[in-house]
């Protein structure tokens, strides 16, 4: 048996497929035991998207969908580092983000929530991490919004993050939350994460250092992907 290069997905940290308080999981959760998969080239390779995948303005959601003016809401800067479990930066990896507008409405036909669309805000962006694993984008603080899960259900404000990392098996889709949000302790999606510290790590931190005078508040959010256990195979 070959030794695996990557640490396993840590199911003490990731939410299980079935988490009944989040009602949509009941019929959409695989129930049979996952089958162990060896690491072959199919798992150790993965999509590679770098700076050539970006267009000008992809890192500024306040600019990239303007029709006739500025989007409404509070301008913010979100920045952080993508690291692996060995505390090493993950450089050159694509980070895709999407979110609701300031009123808590997504620019999506399925979204029927009675809140205004913003003609100058689409709510999607892309950035690529630099040599230190750092990313940075400018956006509007997303609003909370109701969803049909239970009586008076509102999602806490959040930004969706999608990352690949160095291989197909390091893929991660997660959500970034905001500090002090009173909806977090009652959100079934957030509470689907079984570990309290793992939940806390999805809450961004207000950063005075990243705040830009007279312009935008800064939030820091680091993301940790699965890492290689040992030194990579080097020739």
């Amino acid at each position, binding site marked *: 048996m070959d030794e695996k290069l990557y640490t396993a997905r840590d199911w003490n940290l990731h939410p299980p497929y079935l988490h009944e308080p989040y009602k949509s999981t009941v019929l*959409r959760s695989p129930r*049979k035991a996952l089958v162990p998969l060896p690491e*072959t080239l199919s798992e150790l390779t993965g999509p590679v998207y770098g700076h050539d995948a970006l267009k000008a303005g992809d890192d500024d959601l306040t600019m990239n969908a303007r029709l006739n003016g500025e989007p409404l809401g509070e301008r913010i800067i979100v920045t952080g580092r993508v690291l692996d479990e060995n505390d090493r930066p993950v450089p050159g990896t694509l980070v895709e983000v999407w979110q609701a507008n300031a009123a808590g409405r997504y620019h999506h036909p399925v979204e029927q929530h009675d809140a205004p669309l913003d003609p100058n805000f689409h709510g999607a962006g892309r950035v690529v991490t630099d040599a230190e694993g750092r990313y940075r984008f400018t956006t509007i603080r997303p609003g909370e919004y109701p969803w049909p899960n239970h009586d008076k259900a509102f999602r806490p404000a959040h930004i969706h993050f999608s990352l690949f990392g160095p291989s197909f098996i390091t893929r991660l*889709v997660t959500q970034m939350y905001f500090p002090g949000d009173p909806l977090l302790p009652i959100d079934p999606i957030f509470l689907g994460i079984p570990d309290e510290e793992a939940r806390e790590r999805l809450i961004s931190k207000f950063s005075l250092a990243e705040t830009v005078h007279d312009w935008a508040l800064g939030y820091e959010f680091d993301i940790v992907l699965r890492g290689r256990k040992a030194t990579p195979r080097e020739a």
Partner: protein
Amino acid sequence: MPKQSAAQTIGPYFAICLTPEIWGMEGIASNTLRRSDTPGEHIRIEGRVLDGEGVAVSDALIEIWQANAAGRYRHPEDDREELALDEGFTGFGRCRTDADGAFSFETVKPGRVPGQGNRLQAPHVSLIVQARGMLSHAFTRFYFSDEEAANEEDAVLASVEAARRPTLIAARSETPDGIVYRLDIVLQGDEETVFFDA
């Protein structure tokens, strides 16, 4: 040392970023992986995503990753220079399911790639399945029904109990529009797709 960031559901609105074609925008990838001149057998992979009651999952995201027809991945880890890469073929595709839960990819049939102990694997594509209602993503694979001999000796297929192997094998048919491989992804129930702990 830092710990893995926890996954959270992709939710129902990912299309605004990941598959934004309906807004006239381009994502990083679509469900067309090949060009007209991409070497290899041109195929369509299609199926539906179904929930535990057999109801269509109309807001799933299917991502596929595969080698080219020569069996080479476009990635630094695959350094087998003797196998050519194909211009314009990344090996990655994305498709959002429609109202019927249907997805499809226009691609090429992948070549065989090495597995453990340098034994060749049967041709396959790797998939990530996500949807509203899935808090973490799920890994699976699609193999090809006309590769019986290769499938027979594939170590990953052999690790799956025989009764569940058909959930990983897409059925080939030759249609007026070309070669189609079809397989549904069943999230739950007796016919549940085999998902991997990758």
